[in-house]
């Protein structure tokens, strides 16, 4: 059984059919990349998985449980975290308060402290700035905070929406290194990216989304050498 199964979901914005019945799965321990151009429906797909949107038809199963109708705020407590597009840190709260909100569903205080320690170890920059207002962090630091905040809930699956967006090449490398580290600690990763080259270089498998449809799927290493992909997404 796959950890996450997306079965034939269709998502509408009013009358606009943004996702046209797609299916895919994510297995325990994998890094899965979901790539596609602007407006392909990547964000819509992630938001449907984590309960911010509901599909018109189809279903989403997480660890075998149908979560399609479960209210959005209950999903993170089930073990799936979402690092949203554009980071969405709480700008007027401190770094520490942001991280603690990430552990909102964690009941035991000792677990929260443990997560906090772990996040500070992975992101020393956040530890240095724990009392700073999140809105005053740099873009890269905000991305780290958004990722650290999601990790605070101790997720088994972490969904990330364009974590490299708007960052300098050096920071992009750093962010991808961090994603690899997150994966190596046993957390499953579903990664949405426009930076297809980078995403495919760290992913196990990938799906290519085009205007609401999955047009291609396969091993990331194979997709990296696929001629169509090279032309359309890798700029070669």
């Amino acid at each position, binding site marked *: 059984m796959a950890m996450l199964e997306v079965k034939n979901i269709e998502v509408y914005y009013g009358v606009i059919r943004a996702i046209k019945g797609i299916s895919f799965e994510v297995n325990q321990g994998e890094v899965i990349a979901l790539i596609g151009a602007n407006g392909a429906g990547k964000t819509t797909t992630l938001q449907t998985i984590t309960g911010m949107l509901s599909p018109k038809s189809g279903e989403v199963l997480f660890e075998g449980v149908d979560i399609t109708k479960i209210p959005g705020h209950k999903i993170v407590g089930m073990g799936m975290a979402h690092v949203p597009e554009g980071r969405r840190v*709480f700008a007027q709260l401190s770094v520490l308060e942001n991280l603690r909100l990430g552990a*909102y569903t964690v009941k035991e205080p000792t677990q929260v402290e443990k997560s906090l320690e772990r996040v500070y170890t992975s992101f020393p920059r956040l530890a240095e700035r724990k009392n700073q207002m999140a*809105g005053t962090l740099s873009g890269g630091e905000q991305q780290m905070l958004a990722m650290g905040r999601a990790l605070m809930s101790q997720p088994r699956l972490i969904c990330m929406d364009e974590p490299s967006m708007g960052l300098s090449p050096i920071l992009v490398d750093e962010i991808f290194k961090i994603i690899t580290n997150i994966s190596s600690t046993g957390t499953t990763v579903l990664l949405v990216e426009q930076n297809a080259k980078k995403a495919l270089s760290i992913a196990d498998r990938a799906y290519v989304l085009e205007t609401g449809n999955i047009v291609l799927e396969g091993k990331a290493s194979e997709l990296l050498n696929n001629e169509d992909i090279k032309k359309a997404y890798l700029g070669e």
Partner: protein
Amino acid sequence: MSFIMYLINGISLGSVYAIIALGYTMVYGIAKMLNFAHGDVIMIGSYISFVTFSQMGLGPVPAVVISIVVCTALGMIIERVAYKPLRKAVSPLAVLITAIGVSYLLQNVALLVFGANPVSYVSMIAVPPLKLAGGELTITGITVITIVLCLVIMGVLMVFIKKTKAGQAMLAVSEDKDAAQLMGVNVNGTIALTFAIGSGLAAIAGILLCSAYPTLTPYTGAMPGIKAFTAAVFGGIGSIPGALVGGILLGVIEILGRAYISSQLSDAIVFAVLIIVLLVKPTGILGKPIFEKV
């Protein structure tokens, strides 16, 4: 001496405005709406405490508790029935107009149940007056209670928001509902809690207000409601310390204006000061500049 007297009375009236302003400012901060029915919840709370204390003969403690419980429930019902269905409405005007409608509804229900004749509210706060400066300065018990209670409420609320999970969830919802939901925060529940707290405080404000100004009619809540809303804007809407600062300033300006300038013009003076403050600092005295999302 009389100046100090006026000042203290102003602070006391301002404390009531501050407690009411909390309801406006918290609801605005979290649900991004102006709950114009808030003033009328105060009026309902005052009638409840009047009926339980003066007519049914209950003690002050049960009267206060019942009034708080009824207002809290009323606030949550109003939110659930009238505002929640409109949360995704395209135009924010829809909610505003609904709030005005709820305000009239509450006034008319009170008119129906309690009648249009003013009732004389009997203060349930039996605290002896405080004599200062060798008996030259007498501060009534209700004045002292009001100021102290206001400061206690502010303090408790600020600690609640800073230190508890529910308080942090409120801040998260006020900044970004979607992101808060991703943290596992029940956004609807948090908004309901905010209405509950604001309306519970409205009950307390009603009791304090009617104890100091003991004429109660179905329209009693309207003017203090508008003034407290003004106080919230004055201090910076969305800001809790702003409600305190705005409320007290407003009360002091009103009482001093009435004493030294003109009793007819005191309300006009209050609103003129508001307009000047907003011209100079559109976000209010303690209002934060609105952050741009990155």
